[in-house]
Each structure stands twice: as structure tokens, then as C-alpha cells.
């Protein structure tokens, strides 16, 4: 348990009768990147704000680095960096001045301020625009400046709310690299997003939010097993052979389904690639593709909400 930087038990947030966050449990471990996923309005941002003590909780307990954000918000905020959704800076001030203001609020000793700002801006590659006004910055630069603020703060936990929304692919890539960089320097990162494929690439674990509940939590693979069923999906493209018939009887193969002409999807409970290849080739078929399908979060997500709708 000492490895958890954030522990949430039964966290509740009521807006009137509506349960925006419905008694959730969360654990975020030291040094991991944790994704809060879910559609807009699922309670991600509310949860984040409660973690920071920026919004009152209606029930449950939160422990961030050993502090209670409700009673000790200053201690929490001193150690946790936060990059809000579409972060804003003071446009009439330069990047440096914006960070100086933050540094003053953080009560960083004056002698250290300049060094830490420069270092932080270097880490996000903004040191060449240190004295440019923020009004000239692009959205991606602003997000990076937000990361720089967290770096300067030397936070133990970084909470990023929709960090990649509105960014072009290149900027997104850069930002995700920086998030990985944070992780490398030992910072636990909690990020929320509704853009699943991007998050998938960086997150160690994710929690899937739905209407205030944590529907699923774990690694992406665990989630896929849970939603899409356990097993290894394979894609087979071949010609000149009846794949379904050929593969029948291989130990471990559960379903074989033709998706299109010459393309099949196979689900097995173990890695059956070698056996599949052998069977098709020995049956005289031309194997053009044999791919181990990574479970896609997108898929998990879609499937899960389909099932949730069916259930409802």
C-alpha cells in the first residue's frame, strides 16, 4: 500500500440528487501512468478536482501522498501538479513571468526560481521562447508550458486533464513523449482523456468511467480480456484454402469468423500462431498475413458501452 500515491475509497460527489461521482475506488501507484477514460460528463474532471481539493467531496475518503485534500488541500497542492483541460496562462506575461508567479505562489526560494524555470522550460523545449508573451503561443506550446510548470514544481504526482485534446498529431506525439519523460523521472501521472488510442500508448493502467462509476480498471490487456473475452485474437489473411475448416481442431482455438473475403478473425485461449500457420501452409493455402491483434481500447470501450446499453 505504501506504493500508492493516491487512494480513493467510496468517493462520492452529489450535484443535488444526481450522482456525478458514485462511490468510486481508485489506487494509483508510484511511478505509473494511469488513465481515466470515459466520455465527457462521466465524472473524470470532477474526480480530479476532488483529488486536488478544488471541489468538495460529498462522501468517501481520499488520500493523496498521505494527505487529505479536504482538510489539507495546501499540502496536497504543494506536491501535486495539475494541468487543467485547456490550460490558460496570463497572455500579457511572458512564459518566464507566468512561471515566476507560480513559483512565488509555491514559495520557491528566490535563488532557485530562475534555475528551475530554465530547466523546466528546457525539458519541454520552450527555453527559446522564455521571454515571449504567452499570447503568441500555440495551444501545444501552452500545454507544454503547463507541463513545464509541473516540472518546475517538482511534483510527485502530475494530474493532467485532457492533455492532448485539440492538439495536432505531432503536438500530441510530443506531449505524450513528455508525459513519458515525467514517468521516467519518477512522477506518477494521472491523466484523463476521451481520446482512447492516444492514451493507450502511454498508460500503464486505465480506469473506464461511465456515469460516475468506474466500470473497468486495469491494464489495457486485462480490460480487453474482461470485455472482449479472454484469449488472443488473430487476424488471418489467406487464399486458396477454407480457413475455417482448416483451423478446426487446433487446440485452443475458440472461434473462427470470416470478416471479409480472404480475411478471418480467430480467437484462441492461447498463442496459436505457429499452429495456424502450419495448418494453412500444409493445406496448400497461401498465407498472406497472420497478425496478433493487440486489444484496442477503442474496441473495449465500444464493446463495453454497447453491452452496457443492452443491459440497460
Amino acid at each position, binding site marked *: 500500500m505504501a506504493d500508492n500515491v493516491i487512494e480513493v475509497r467510496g468517493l462520492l460527489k452529489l450535484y443535488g440528487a444526481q450522482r456525478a461521482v458514485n462511490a468510486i475506488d481508485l489506487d494509483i501507484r508510484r511511478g505509473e501512468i494511469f488513465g481515466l477514460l470515459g466520455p465527457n460528463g462521466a465524472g473524470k*474532471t*470532477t474526480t480530479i*478536482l476532488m483529488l*486536488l481539493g*478544488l*471541489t468538495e467531496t460529498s462522501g468517501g475518503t481520499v488520500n493523496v501522498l498521505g494527505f487529505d485534500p*479536504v*482538510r*489539507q*488541500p*495546501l*499540502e496536497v*497542492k*504543494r506536491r*501535486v*501538479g*495539475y*494541468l*487543467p*483541460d*485547456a*490550460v*490558460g*496562462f*496570463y*497572455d*500579457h506575461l511572458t512564459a518566464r513571468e507566468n512561471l515566476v*508567479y*507560480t513559483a*512565488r*505562489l*509555491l*514559495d520557491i526560494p528566490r535563488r532557485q526560481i530562475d534555475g528551475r524555470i530554465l530547466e523546466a522550460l528546457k525539458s519541454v523545449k520552450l527555453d527559446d521562447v522564455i521571454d515571449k508573451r504567452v499570447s503568441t503561443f500555440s495551444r501545444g506550446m501552452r500545454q507544454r508550458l*503547463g507541463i513545464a*510548470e509541473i516540472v518546475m514544481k517538482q511534483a510527485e504526482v502530475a494530474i493532467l486533464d485532457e492533455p492532448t485534446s485539440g492538439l495536432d498529431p505531432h503536438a500530441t506525439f510530443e506531449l505524450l513523449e513528455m508525459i513519458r519523460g515525467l514517468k521516467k523521472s519518477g512522477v506518477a501521472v494521472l491523466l484523463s482523456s476521451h481520446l482512447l488510442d492516444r492514451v493507450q500508448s502511454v498508460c500503464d493502467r486505465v480506469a473506464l468511467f461511465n456515469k460516475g462509476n468506474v466500470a473497468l480498471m486495469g491494464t489495457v490487456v486485462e480490460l480487453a480480456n474482461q470485455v472482449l473475452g479472454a484469449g488472443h485474437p488473430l487476424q488471418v489473411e489467406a487464399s486458396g484454402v477454407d480457413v475455417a475448416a482448416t483451423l478446426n481442431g487446433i487446440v485452443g482455438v475458440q472461434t473462427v469468423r470470416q470478416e471479409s473475403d480472404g480475411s478471418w478473425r480467430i480467437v484462441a485461449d492461447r498463442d496459436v500462431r505457429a499452429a495456424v500457420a502450419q495448418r494453412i501452409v500444409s493445406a496448400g493455402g497461401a498465407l498472406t498475413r497472420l497478425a496478433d491483434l493487440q486489444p484496442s481500447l477503442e474496441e473495449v470501450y465500444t464493446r463495453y458501452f454497447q453491452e452496457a446499453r443492452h443491459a440497460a
Partner: protein
Amino acid sequence: MPRSREGSPFTGLGPVFLKEFADHLSSARMMVLMLFVIVFGAFPVATSLQTLRTVVDPNSFIFLRIFTLESEQVGISFTAALNFIIPLMAIGLGFDAVNSEFNRRTLSRVLSQPIYRDALLLGKFLGGLATLAVALVALWLIVLGAGLLLLGVPPRGVEVARGLSFLVVAIAYGGVWLAIAMLFSVIFRSTATSALCALGVWLFFFILWPLLAGALLVGLAPSEIRSMDDYAAVQSMGLGLMRLSPGTLFSEAVLGLLSPETRTLGPMLPSQMRGAIMGAPLPFDQSVLLIWPQVTGLIAGMIVVFAAAYVIFQREEVRA
């Protein structure tokens, strides 16, 4: 479940205050406001100085007269001009204090630093107030300097004391309007709405309230006035209604401070005038006692409006 929070609510007050103060002083808006004030203040001061130079006045409080003299050319004294300029300045400084942080999406980022909202709001208020104070002190010094230059006599100690008290009252008056402007900046997310509402309150108190108070008085006053006491009571009631306006409190406080011969701000019965040496100036401490309710009213009003803004701000969600 009100659990007590830990840490001083003033944590981070200093940086917020300094940033707001620096922002105001370097902003173009401040330049415009100052220009506005100087233009508006210069005319009454210039004309009253001209009058005071030509007229050998037996009034020994000649420096105070610079502030209060209502010359014929302009028809408005310096203090009367300040009476409606100060609210304008304060509204200009405060109408977008909080909602602009929302709109720039800086609020949640700033609040995620180790400070409470208390410090943010108070720091913004104090920053605005300090800016106002700097502007007023500068204005005051300019007037004093012009007086020294053109009248060629130094002000007496008691004049300086009264002038400084006037400055304090003016700052408190500005504080009331700053609090009102900030209240609207907390209530409305749109800065334009907030500015409009603050200006609306300003117009209400300066134009509508005197009329409304008159109408209310007609309704409230007894139909028949039989004695001097009745008359005095009606007068007091009217004054009481007018004193709900911060402008009235300010002008009364200024009257008491800068016109030392002022003995009372209410109606005076003939029996109270018997034996009185009219025109004799009140001692400074007595003048201060005379206007004390006005001053405390302004300060208390400022605090209460600020408290209202505070409560609303605390209840607001930080998310944009």
C-alpha cells in the same frame, strides 16, 4: 460535513497581491483611468486655485479650500468630481477581477497551487485597493504641489492632517466600489455583464436613488408636520435614506473633514444654535468624531460586500 481545513487562508496572499498590483499599474486600462481622473480633477483644481489666488480669503484653511471650492466656471468642486470618478476607477479595476481568470482558464491552474481562494480574492481586492490608493495619493500630491506653487504658502499641520484623513476616506470609498465591482465579477462569467451591472449600480446611486429616496420620504413622512421636532425627524429620515448611498457617506465625510466649520451633518434645531459661535472651526478630533459613522459605514459596507463576494466565490465551481 464542515471539516476544518488546515493552513493559513493567507498563504500566497503576498504573491497574488503583488502580481495584481503590478498588473494594474502596468495596464493600459490604468493609464486611461488616470488620464480620465486627471482631466476631470484638473479643471476644478485649476479654477479653484485661480479663485483662491485672487481672493484674499480670511479662511485660514486655504489649502482645504482647493479641494472644496466650487468655482463658477466649472460648477463642481474637486471632491465632488472625485465623488463620481472614484467609483468609476474602482469599477474599472474590479469588474473583471475574477471572471477574467475564468475566461482565460487560469483560475483552476492558479488554485491548484498551494493557496486558498481566500488569498486569491483578498489579494485581488488589496491589489486593486493599493492601485486605487496609489492613484489617489498621486493625485493628492499633485494638487498639494500645485497649491504650494500657486498660492505660495505652506499648508498648516492641521490641514495636512485633514487632507490625509480625506485620502483615507477616499480610499475607503473606492474600496466599497471595488468590492461591488468584484462582487459582480464573481457573479457573472461575462466581463461585459459584470461591468454593466457595476455601472448600473453606480448610475442607480447617483441618479435614481436621490429621486427614489425623495419619493420614499413622501410616503414615509407623517402627513402633517406640527413642530420643529417633526420636521427634524423627517429631515433625518431623508438623510438616513440618502446615506444608504456610498456617495452620500463620502460627500458627508469630505464635508466634515475639509470644511472644519461643519458642526453637524444632520438638521440643527434653533435651540442647538443658541450661544454657538458660528463659523468657528471644529477641532480636528471633533471633526473626525463627527464623520466617524460615515467612515465606519463605508469601511463596514466594504467588508460586507467583500464578504458577499467571498461567499459566492467559495460556492462557485472552479471548472470553467
